[in-house]
């Protein structure tokens, strides 16, 4: 668990002991096996009302338990709060300064060391959304962030359920495949990541297309991209598949309005999403697949030329997917593949990034996407396990 203020101290009365990393790894492995068995059983099970109630109850319970507990695994939520407090409490632009600008603020102590000097990479919509929480103090703001994550998770799951039904898929399977996914629950919700807000908006956009509200769908994708830019990848597939200009007009309208709001609130830095993305794409995490491949081929790590090769590979994949979409392939599946390709080719891979394609994977007919997504997630979890074989202490 990251360093954190005591927000769930009352859970200590239930007994138990402090969670160590080794126990956490065993628990996440057990949860992953249980999740795999659950999905296999669901495939063989026939749909009935009691199964539906049981599935909703399980997912609700998982969400609420994690919501009530402490912040898990990541310090990102403290960065979110630090950026909010920089703007609201200290009058400092989070797009031009890192949390180091508020050394005296109580949240500073909890921000991850690597991010102290880094300005926010999130879009202006998210930053504005987070500002009210900045005024609530450290603990109040933290609970606010957790509430945002819980509500976003609930919206994502409700929309996954609804869209799966409308597209003729097994909604119980779809709900459990997302809502009981260990990475979704433990890493995504447990860390109160803003990726969940992005996922909720992504699913809103998909739901709008099912109601033929293309302008609203295009606008929602843009709003989502101004939370976290990755979701913008849906737009070309949506436009190409729907072959309606309404989505483009909706997207342009939303972009204009949000950019204006961002510019008024933060100046030009608030709408310069490209610079933030370029900066972050240069980072390298130990869990990224390019880093693992570099090790496999005897290199110490990823070199600058590898970044260019990976970008080229990603462009080729997206072009192929666009061509397939033009020829009639499901645009939702194509978007999911593109999101999966982004996470696999990224040199900066975190657990919650491989959640991006999951809600799309359970509402498409192309089952390869779900298999590939779960396979990549399984590899990610397997990569965490080396401390189990040789615990350093």
């Amino acid at each position: 668990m990251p360093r954190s203020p005591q927000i769930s101290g009352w859970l200590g009365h239930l007994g138990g002991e402090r969670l160590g990393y080794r126990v956490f790894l065993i628990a996440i492995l057990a949860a992953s096996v249980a999740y795999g068995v659950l999905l296999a059983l669901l495939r063989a099970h026939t749909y009935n009302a009691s199964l539906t109630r049981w599935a909703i109850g399980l997912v609700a319970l998982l969400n609420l338990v994690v919501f009530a507990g402490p912040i898990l695994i990541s310090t990102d939520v403290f960065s979110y709060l630090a950026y909010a407090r920089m703007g609201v409490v200290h009058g400092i632009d989070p797009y031009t300064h890192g949390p180091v600008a508020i050394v005296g603020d109580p949240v500073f102590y909890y921000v991850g060391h690597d991010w102290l000097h880094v300005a926010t990479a999130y879009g202006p919509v998210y930053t504005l959304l987070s500002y009210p929480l900045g005024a609530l103090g450290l603990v109040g703001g933290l609970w606010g962030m957790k509430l945002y994550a819980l509500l976003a998770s609930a919206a994502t799951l409700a929309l996954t359920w609804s869209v799966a039904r409308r597209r003729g898929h097994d909604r119980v399977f779809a709900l459990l495949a997302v809502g009981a996914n260990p990475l979704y629950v433990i890493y995504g919700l447990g860390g109160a990541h803003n990726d969940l807000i992005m996922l909720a908006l992504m699913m809103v956009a998909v739901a709008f297309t099912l109601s033929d509200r293309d302008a609203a769908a295009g606008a929602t994708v843009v709003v989502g991209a101004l939370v976290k830019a990755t979701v913008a990848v849906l737009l070309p597939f949506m436009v190409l598949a729907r072959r309606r200009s309404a989505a483009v007009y909706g997207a342009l309208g939303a972009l204009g309005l949000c950019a204006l709001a961002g510019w008024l609130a933060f100046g030009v830095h608030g709408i310069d999403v490209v610079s933030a993305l370029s900066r972050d794409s240069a980072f390298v995490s130990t869990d990224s697949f390019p880093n693992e491949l570099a090790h496999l081929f005897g290199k110490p790590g990823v070199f600058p030329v590898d970044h260019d090769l990976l970008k080229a590979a990603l462009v080729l994949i997206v072009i192929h997917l666009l061509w397939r979409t033009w020829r009639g392939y499901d645009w939702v599946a194509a978007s999911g593949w593109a999101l999966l390709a982004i996470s696999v080719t990224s040199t900066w891979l975190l657990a919650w990034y491989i959640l991006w394609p999951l809600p799309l994977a359970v509402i498409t007919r192309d089952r390869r996407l779900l298999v590939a997504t779960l396979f990549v997630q399984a590899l990610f979890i397997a990569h965490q396990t080396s401390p189990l074989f040789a615990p350093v202490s």
Partner: protein
Amino acid sequence: MSRVRLIETTLLILFGLLLAAATVNDVTRQTHVNQRLIDDLRTWRAYTHHDYHNLSIEQTLFGERSQREVVCGNTTPGAPKSRIQVCLAIWGPVVDSKRVVHGGWYLPTGTEEDLRRHRYGCFGPASRGICPTAAEAAAEHRSTSAGARA
């Protein structure tokens, strides 16, 4: 479109196998690294005769792939880095679950980062070129004293 799908599926399976191989290779590699670090910690404890557990390990000082580590820990009981620390440069083959100490240095109380200018009392061949020269140490001492006066 079925031919395209077949090609896609084949490529996906091949790429999946490549990723799986990379993951297994990385877990194995990291397990070996962890085992080496365990031996390094054991070496530090044996050398200093302190059974402390809050030790820090620097793996890149002698190069990313050098397999030469620097392990630092307090010289007396206390919170991590709150006492004078002794750092040992450790490398070589594992013998009896330990490796060889090739030198080291001390760090003053409260030093967060093992920087060249902080090192003193250097010993052994490993400290050559790693520790500040006498002139550098004098300059550092002067600037610290001036800072303290200001």
